[in-house]
């Protein structure tokens, strides 16, 4: 950290770094807000979605110019399908998750979508509890297959209706889900290592 060489250009600037281009309200006090300083997102698309899904969608927001919507978990796949068929969002860029162990619904699931026709990228964000089984997106986008397998591999979120819900990067018999926050950085499945690699893990 400290020994990282920094160029002369980055002289000790005043305490709030990078504040110059930001709206002062969000950054001027020494403590920035603990939540995302989002702005509402309104467009023809949000109107369309609001008409169709009503209170299934909890929020339309925008942060740093990137639009996203927060939906109830059961509505995520219908929204994906609606966006693909009615609004031309035909490319599922990515599915990923983030772990917040202190929350009752500990995972945030993210679907990143892009539309070739509109040249627009949006995200769908939904919170799921540990053990809940969100529906698979493979019924809408073929690319969801491996992406959901990776989310399962790393977070242990099972997707209902997925054709092949197995681990993808780690061995099938591996114990634990590495990207959960309680999983240690150098933690590994000692039993698996001993049985399959014939070595003591040394940790």
């Amino acid at each position, binding site marked *: 950290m400290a020994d*990282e060489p920094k*160029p002369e250009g980055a002289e000790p600037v005043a305490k709030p770094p990078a504040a110059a281009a930001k709206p002062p309200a969000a950054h001027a006090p020494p403590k920035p*807000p603990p939540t995302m300083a989002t702005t509402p997102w309104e467009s023809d698309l949000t109107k369309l979605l609001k008409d169709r899904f009503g209170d299934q969608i909890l929020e339309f927001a925008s942060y*740093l110019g990137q639009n996203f919507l927060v939906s109830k978990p059961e509505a995520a796949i219908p929204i994906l399908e609606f966006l693909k068929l009615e609004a031309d969002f035909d490319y599922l860029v990515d599915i*990923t998750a983030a772990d917040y162990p202190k929350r009752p619904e500990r995972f945030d699931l993210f679907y990143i979508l892009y539309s070739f026709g509109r040249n627009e990228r949006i995200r769908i964000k939904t919170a799921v509890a540990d053990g809940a089984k969100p529906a698979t997106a493979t019924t809408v986008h073929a*690319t969801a297959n491996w992406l959901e397998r990776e989310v399962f591999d790393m977070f242990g979120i099972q997707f209902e209706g997925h054709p092949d819900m197995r681990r*993808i990067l780690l*061995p099938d018999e591996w114990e634990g889900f590495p990207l959960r926050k309680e999983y240690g950085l150098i933690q590994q499945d000692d039993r698996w290592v001993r049985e399959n690699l014939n070595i003591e893990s040394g940790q």
Partner: protein
Amino acid sequence: MPEATFLDSTELVLNMGPQHPSTHGVLRVILKLDGEKVMGTECIIGYLHRGVEKIAENRTYVMFNPYVDRMDYVAAVSNGLGYCLAIEKLLNVEAPPRAQAARVILTELNRIASHLLWLGTHALDIGAITPVFYCFREREEVLKIFENYCGARLTTHAFRIGGLVYELYDGFEQECRAFCDMFLPKVDEYEELLTNNRIWVSRLKGIGILSAEECKDYGVTGPVLRAAGVKWDLRKAMPYSGYEQYDFDIPTAQNGDTYDRYTVRMEEMRQSVRIIRQAVDKIPSGPIMGKVGKVVKPPTGEAYVSIEAPKGELGYFVVSDNSTQPYRVRVRPPSFINLQALDRMVRGGLVADVVAIIGTLDIVLGEVDR
């Protein structure tokens, strides 16, 4: 054993890899064959999994920067650019114009290096031994520029969050220009060797077809998508680092087969030369580092930023909790997602074409497994 097994017409399961010269790393493919015909495949990946995304959560933003080079190590500069842009987005800063121009030059050089490695090994897989030597000869010149610039040839760590750490060295422009002048005729030479070569054409034409619709369904991007006729390149669609200032074309083709992907990538190398020449001619003067504090601590929030890497859309989704360490870093790796379409491409084809199709996808296992 019953004697009839010899004449049995059951499926033959053939294991390919992980230690196989044509899988470009540690990819294992289980092929189900009916005679010469491929009935299905299963990819076993993860042999190179290092938990890069987990490491990110345990390092500061600055410390994690060199790790990203180890994913797509053939195009390390692109990885670094994507990561720096994502963090700069969260910090809401922009690199100064001089840094942006240098970034464009280095990433385009890296695109050429990556495509050269692809061309050499792809041709080698198909049985053309010669191109690999020529490709590595020219790639060496690119790596020399990297070495002169930042001391490293492969995992360069060329960029920093907010700009550059090293000023461009004396003679950088001349070396880049000399490389462009030297390189452009070489592309024609490669094409002379391959483009109309009868063996090359018959091994590639009509092999591993992926239509535009299938590409979109599988999320396949980069040259594979463009070969299917979709004129889409993030450098044009959502320009970053000042790509909008440069004049270049997006090469496309129509059939979406292995041969088209070859022609698209060849043309991309020429377009990269075009970009480098324009960028070198007008490198602005000024600072090379933006206003980023010594401690990188983005406000709480999340952002997804992606760039056009040599292999496709390379994205970084970063969640910040206003600490010095990222809360979550997700890498959207083009190789991983493009590889998923392998099954679709080889199904129904011949077993000999599997090697050609793996080559044409241009995967790097360091990025597939992360």
